[in-house]
């Protein structure tokens, strides 16, 4: 390929990327707009809360538990080099609440929820169910997208908070059972160092990640190509895009909250 050809290819890729960002932004604004005009579909919102929040608890809980445990082992091993093993409780707590709780929780929800939303809505699109909704005077953005996005934005912060607690418990169990910490001292250390801001910042991250996850699932589902292949591609794009966006948003939010 010659130089001009390469430049043209680069240009096309950048343009396509910018166009996609534009479309996703419009989709997001369009979704939020429906928050302010009736009708509202309460039953759909409730179903989405159960699906996204409640049913994600096991996955998020297990992830947090093992992460908390591993974190305690690593910090203990690392801290031992400076005779600083006592920092285990506080670093586990801060690490879980600020970073690992929201990021790993968000990624697990991205895998579980954004794929299922994209597959469901994509199948509805491919089988003309979205068209049928429109002809039945029901706006698919109101009926399908808004309840899912709203539910994820509300539920993921709570998932993150629960995940934080379970992760800290994982660290506690490893700390007291394997590393010989005194149970009462471990808990006191955790409580003393953890501030409310650590927890709320993680929950704000969770809300943003939840929004991203459901939005990407709906966006790629609604724009699914035709046939089974189209739905497959939509599902993959939803998971990949929401995962990358979560990590990027996490960096930006961390800068905003913690860079002095």
């Amino acid at each position: 390929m010659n130089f001009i050809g390469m430049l043209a290819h680069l240009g096309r890729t950048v343009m396509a990327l910018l166009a996609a960002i534009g479309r996703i932004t419009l989709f997001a604004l369009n979704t939020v707009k429906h928050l302010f005009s009736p009708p509202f579909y309460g039953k759909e919102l409730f179903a989405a809360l159960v699906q996204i929040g409640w049913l994600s608890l096991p996955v998020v809980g297990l992830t947090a538990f093992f992460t908390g445990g591993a974190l305690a082992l690593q910090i203990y091993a690392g801290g031992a080099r400076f005779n600083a093993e006592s920092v285990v409780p506080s670093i586990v707590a801060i690490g879980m609440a600020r970073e690992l709780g929201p990021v790993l929780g968000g990624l697990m929800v991205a895998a579980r929820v954004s794929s299922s939303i994209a597959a469901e809505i994509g199948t509805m699109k491919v089988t003309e169910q979205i068209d049928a909704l429109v002809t039945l005077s029901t706006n698919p953005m109101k009926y399908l997208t808004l309840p899912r996005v709203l539910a994820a934005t509300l539920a993921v912060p709570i998932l993150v908070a629960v995940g934080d607690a379970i992760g800290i418990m994982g660290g506690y169990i490893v700390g007291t059972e394997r590393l010989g910490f005194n149970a009462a001292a471990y808990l006191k250390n955790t409580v003393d160092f953890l501030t409310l801001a650590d927890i709320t910042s993680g929950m704000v991250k969770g809300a943003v990640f939840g929004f991203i996850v459901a939005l990407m699932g709906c966006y790629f589902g609604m724009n699914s190509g035709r046939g089974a292949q189209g739905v497959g591609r939509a599902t993959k794009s939803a998971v990949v895009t929401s995962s990358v966006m979560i990590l990027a948003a996490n960096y930006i939010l961390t800068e905003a909250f913690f860079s002095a």
Partner: protein
Amino acid sequence: MISLSKVFKSFGPIDVLQGVDLSIERGKSMVIIGGSGTGKSVCLKCVLGLIKPDQGLITVDGQDVQTAEREAFLARFGMLFQGGALFDSLPVWQNVAFRLMRGSLKRPKEEARDIAIEKLRRVGLKPEVADKFPAELSGGMQKRVGLARAIAADPEIIFFDEPTTGLDPIMSGVINDLIREIVVEMGATAMTITHDMTSVRAIADDIAMLHNGVIQWTGPVADMDQSGDPYLDQFIHGRAEGPIEAVR
């Protein structure tokens, strides 16, 4: 009442509609025939505003469908999709009563359910079907549930996309009679896509044949057999030889 004028639509390199002109009078039953893949479904979706034509004007009662107020406009229509397009997360009766449970036509749940069961009966389905999920039904039953949903709110204008495809001859007869009845009794305007010549004769007032992106022939069903149009003749008699190529 419905009029399409010079409607063009392409999907990427595929030119589907290339200047469709067609008008349907109030209270008439128009049947659209044509080979598969000629754009019959696309045509209906353009009228409903589900697909935006590249060019051309579509009006219903003189009003441009692009600028019509969507909610009020769509409330006048019922549509049976080619694949049924039932919502698989909802039981059959809630599919049928979908429009009756939300928005401007909302009514109490029991009433909506009663109407749904009555409409199911009209398409030849027993009340037991009401609480099943679409995935538990055969293709032909799904089609009939789709039909029941299309007529649930007694619309003025009804579109049927291949209503009898996949049904046995007896059920096809039931559905043909039903469509005829809806047009005659309710005074609805109907547009039906079908490949089934028995259906055509049973339900059509007028027919239009879509070929190569344009309306190849249109006229009253009584003139169909003496049209002298080689395309229409070939289609009616299902001959492999003729101006329409068998490989498309």
